[in-house]
């Protein structure tokens, strides 16, 4: 039988084609046929590996491939280790052997059965990777040195064993903690590998900033973000690089945390292309309830842009649900009736560009943006989020991650995610302070957008 140590040894020094493909990859072939290079060894670290979790939908793509450019693409990646925080947290709170003996209670395994039960044990057996009790172990795969070439970190809320939230409504997800454990290992061994962090870097901008600094200091590629920035667009359009942008209005649905981040980041990935590049954010304000409609009537954001963004939606609610009709949601004045709890993220950039994210639960169910360029030109599009279960938008992200692992080049700078992390936190601070407008000198970040659009087009 193949021991873990031997397995690691084999995968480290031999071609994947020789390394027990049938045993290790269960016939799926974690490696594309004919690939000359040794597959890149990947550690997957995350919070919960259940059906439908982000970790499952994204990490699976590195196990079984994903649809890409009209083919089923097998990344030249081999998942060699995995750390699932839920398992460790359950173990930590589980009754001990002594407790069982004392109470006579039945022992319950970490992975209960059921449709949404933990999949990490089954995947580990099927694909022959090591399930680890902690993050350094996942990086070292049972050896005493880092034995992976890249890290995939997918930390999300774990519904069955939730992480706590703070008074601002932020879930205190341990993205920074995961990263720090890797960085400590990297530093200890003076060896760093590319790291992907799904979604925002942290709930805290300060932590996020230190993450970006650590990556710079240790010179490893840190990529972060969500799928919305890289998914298909309807129509296939971007802000032309270097064009002045006066204002953008994004519409979507959400609830002050994870989805709102995605929408903010998708907005950012378009706006960063404006003339002069990213100059950072000067101030933010988060409005809620009637204040949103008052601000709208006062012209805080362009109604034309709102109308343009909504014209891209395929999911108007209200009368459309009643009898199928199309609706001009803006000029009909129906929005306040449909949206009981609106929210507006108002963002003022240092260079004067303005962006507003309107959360319109009850009016629509998709994400659409409109931006006014210099003059009267308006660019508008829908960020296409294909439905569950396949959620093929995450295949677009997996392709970007894979390219980063292979090339060690970032498709887009971590500063995009850093700034968006900061904007979200600042907006939630504003909300916490009764919708006060907050100056954000710490968000005066500058960076350059990639010259080519990075969303999927082919």
């Amino acid at each position: 039988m193949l021991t873990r140590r031997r397995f690691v040894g084999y995968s480290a020094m031999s071609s994947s084609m020789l390394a027990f493909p049938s045993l290790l990859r269960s016939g799926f072939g974690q490696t594309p046929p004919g690939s000359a290079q040794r597959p890149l060894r990947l550690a997957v670290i995350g919070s919960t590996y259940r059906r439908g979790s982000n970790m499952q939908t994204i990490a699976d793509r590195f196990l079984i491939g994903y649809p890409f450019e009209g083919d089923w693409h097998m990344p030249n990646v081999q998942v060699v280790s995995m750390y699932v925080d839920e398992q460790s947290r359950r173990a930590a709170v589980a009754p001990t052997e002594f407790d069982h003996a004392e109470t006579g209670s039945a022992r319950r395994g970490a992975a209960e059965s059921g449709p949404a039960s933990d999949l990490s044990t089954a995947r580990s057996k099927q694909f022959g990777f090591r399930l680890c009790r902690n993050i350094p172990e996942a990086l070292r795969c049972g050896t005493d040195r880092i034995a992976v070439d890249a890290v995939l970190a997918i930390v999300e809320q774990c519904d069955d064993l939730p992480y706590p939230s703070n008074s601002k409504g932020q879930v205190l997800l341990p993205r920074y903690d995961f990263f720090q454990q890797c960085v400590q290992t990297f530093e200890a061994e003076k060896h760093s590998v590319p790291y992907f962090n799904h979604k925002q870097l942290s709930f805290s901008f300060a932590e996020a900033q230190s993450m970006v600094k650590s990556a710079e200091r240790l010179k490893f590629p840190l990529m972060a973000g969500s799928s919305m920035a890289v998914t298909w667009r309807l129509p296939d359009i971007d802000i032309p690089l270097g064009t002045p942008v006066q204002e953008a209005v994004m519409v979507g649905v959400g609830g002050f945390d994870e989805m709102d981040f995605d929408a903010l980041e998708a907005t950012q990935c378009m706006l960063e292309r404006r003339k002069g590049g990213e100059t950072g954010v000067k101030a933010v304000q988060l409005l809620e309830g009637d204040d949103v409609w008052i601000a709208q009537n006062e012209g805080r954001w362009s109604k034309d842009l709102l109308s343009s963004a909504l014209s891209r939606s395929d999911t108007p609610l209200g009368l459309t649900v009643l009898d199928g009709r199309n609706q001009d949601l803006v000029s009909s004045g129906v929005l306040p009736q449909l949206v009981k709890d609106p929210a507006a993220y108002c963002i003022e950039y240092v260079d004067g560009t303005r962006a507003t994210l309107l959360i319109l639960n009850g009016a629509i169910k998709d994400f659409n943006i409109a931006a006014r360029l210099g003059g009267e030109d308006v660019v508008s599009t829908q960020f296409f989020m294909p439905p569950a279960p396949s959620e093929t938008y995450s295949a677009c992200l997996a392709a970007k991650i894979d390219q980063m692992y292979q090339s060690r080049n970032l498709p887009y700078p971590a500063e995009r995610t850093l700034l968006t992390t900061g904007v979200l936190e600042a907006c939630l601070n504003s909300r916490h302070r009764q919708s006060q407008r907050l100056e954000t000198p710490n968000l005066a970040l500058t960076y350059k957008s990639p010259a080519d659009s990075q969303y999927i087009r082919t």
Partner: protein
Amino acid sequence: MAPNETSAKRPQLAAVVTAYRKLLHPQHIVDRFLEGYGWNGKYHYPQMDMVSLYVDQRGEGDVFQERADRHPTMKLYPTIDGALTLGTGKLAVDGVVVVGEHGTYPKSDSGIVMHPHYEFFEQITAVFRKSGRSVPYFNDKELSWKWEWCKKMVDVSHELNFPLQGGSSLAVTWRIPSVEFPLGATVREAMCIGYGGISSYDFHALETIQCMVERRRGGECGVEWLQAYRGDAFWKAHQDGIWPQELFKAALTRSSTLRPGDPTFSDIYPTVEQMKAMVPDPLAYQYQHRDGLRCTMILLHGMVRDFTFAAKIDGQSKPFSTQMYLPMPDGRTTLASFFSPLVHNAEQLFLTGKAQYPIERTLLTSGLLIAGVESANKGGQRLQTPNLAAVTYQPNPESTFWRS
């Protein structure tokens, strides 16, 4: 005899439809003329008026009265003649919108619903004839369930010299990725994978293929034979390579609704055994054009919920492929927005007096559907199709699908 050649006045349109209820084609299409729709980043109101409506079947759930009440310009007429003449005895509109889909109509002997496209056409062209004048005619989906009638509809449109524009929204909706079939390319094989049942969504899949391959070198030269595969014969043909696996994979990987064959995964390429478990009644029509192009239309109902296209094009190292995206109001969306480009192209028909794409495309796909159902009924017998071999035409070199 273009409707608006003399003035810039708004074209006046008549609608002739089967039944007007929520989520039926007539609602999707006529509503867009009345209510407007999102187009090109704006809420767009067609620059024309729907002035009359004939509804063939009335009943529970009708919404046309509500529409007529809110849009008093549109009058209801109990006859098609009335809707076209507005009671004047002569043709009094500048264009006709016909939606023959949906409603409750009996099936033909071969099992195709006998939608009244032709009966509507007969009555409409009777008005054209008695008025000595014809106007642009939009016909949703196929021409007719009977080949002779399909052919006659096209012939009469030529005889009376009016533009007839038809077909499926698949030909004009978003593509993901947003690509056009290269004009003049040489193509050896083409395929569409779709969903739905026989004599229904197969039409959409056939239009998906045809709107692409008609752009090939030489244009459309007709189809010489067709063969249907169903049930076990389908799986045998699939495994025997009757259609190229390469194209099958290229089309399937463009799907965004691929159901996982293994329920512990969310997006996984299926094995044949998994496909068999998910698709109880697979269907394929394979047919060969006179220039050798072989096309395969496949319905995998139960496994996908979208339409994807792949083709082997000379000079391209890998298959050309895309998805014809239908934002379906089946829970994914609330609006069937693919009707927006269909209506937009109909507007262009009425504004310019020119069909935006040749009606021969729809003549061919209507005939392919009829032949496909017949072959399936005959246990998958290969049918020679001399009637379809005679359908030749050139495409509109301009792209007419939704991309802005």
